[in-house]
């Protein structure tokens, strides 16, 4: 986290002094992180929609670039914009599309680097699930176990784990919605 903070604030400082390449590097650096946040909040959206939301967030960061306080940390500023725009984007899209459970699980397994900010957010959401569901979500989405492995450990069939995971994710999506003012 600290590295990220120093690195990004150095890039933005150079960018504000007129270095367009530093700005491009900053935007490239934040993109996977933002993608992680969008994905964590919108697991039931198609990847193309997720990418649209990501681009909306990038545009907002660019449009409100001048609101950064050069003397304050970058991350809270960035996360405040990202959260505001992500919530806004999901609200405008209304209810989301449902994807097959297999695709969902695959998406989760394919997530290469669970982002710290997104993780903090989802950890809080996971905490609101019942303990067994929370255990399944943690095992699959954060620790990267396969549903079969989790099932073996918990004495559940592969299919039962997938169904439980699906329900837990829907519950988390509902929790996110409930939070939005």
């Amino acid at each position: 986290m600290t590295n990220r903070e120093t690195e990004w604030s150095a890039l933005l400082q150079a960018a504000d002094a007129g270095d367009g390449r530093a700005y491009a590097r900053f935007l490239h650096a934040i993109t996977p992180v933002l993608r992680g946040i969008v994905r964590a909040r919108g697991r039931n959206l198609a990847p193309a929609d997720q990418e649209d939301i990501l681009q909306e967030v990038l545009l907002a960061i660019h449009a409100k670039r001048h609101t950064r306080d050069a003397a304050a940390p970058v991350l809270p500023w960035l996360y405040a914009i990202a959260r505001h725009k992500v919530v806004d984007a999901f609200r405008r899209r209304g209810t989301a599309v449902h994807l097959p459970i297999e695709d969902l699980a695959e998406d989760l397994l394919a997530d290469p680097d669970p982002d710290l900010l997104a993780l903090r957010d989802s950890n809080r959401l996971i905490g609101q699930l019942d303990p067994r569901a929370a255990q399944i979500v943690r095992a699959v989405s954060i620790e990267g176990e396969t549903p079969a492995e989790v099932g073996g450990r918990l004495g559940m069939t592969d299919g039962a784990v997938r169904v439980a995971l699906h329900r837990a994710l829907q519950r988390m999506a509902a929790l996110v919605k409930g939070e939005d003012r």
Partner: protein
Amino acid sequence: MKTDDLIAALAAQPAPQPLWLPGLALRIIGITALACGVFLLVLGPRADLAAALIRPEVVMKTALPALICTIALWLAVRQARPRLHPRAGLAGLALPLGIALGLWLLAFATRAPEARFADVTPPALAECLGLILLISALPATMALRILQRGAPTAPALAGALAGLASSAGAATGYSLFCMQDNPLFYVTWYGAAIGIVTVASAVAGSRMLRW
């Protein structure tokens, strides 16, 4: 559009002028002072202003809205930056609200029952509410416009604070004209006028300050 292409397009644009919060505050206070100045130029301050200003309750009539204006103005311009916790700092308003409440209760306790609300007449109310609302209208609108350059993550709250700052500023100017020195009158009715502008600005802010 590919995200990489979007980034390339964004990076090609020049760096913007950074937001300077004291500058926003100065613009808002400048417009509010201008509105008060025009008002006092047209209707004039009360004739006995200098003599009246030795009485504490007359001083408070001007000092209290000025304090609210100062605190609300600073809270409002801070909303121009995106914040994770937009409500942080609002407790600062408890000080002037506490003073207002104390002033009201003290006046209620020390005045004879028949003298408490004797000055509440329809013309007095219309003058007080009407003129504060009139002076506030332009500054409150402009304050919202000025905040539009920011990125408030709580647009209604940012609007409310902008309205609170401008209407409390308007009440400060109005107090130099106003002859009602009873705290039971001015705390209540200045408060009502300020409240109306604050609520209206919150509603306007939730639309105008979206981004």
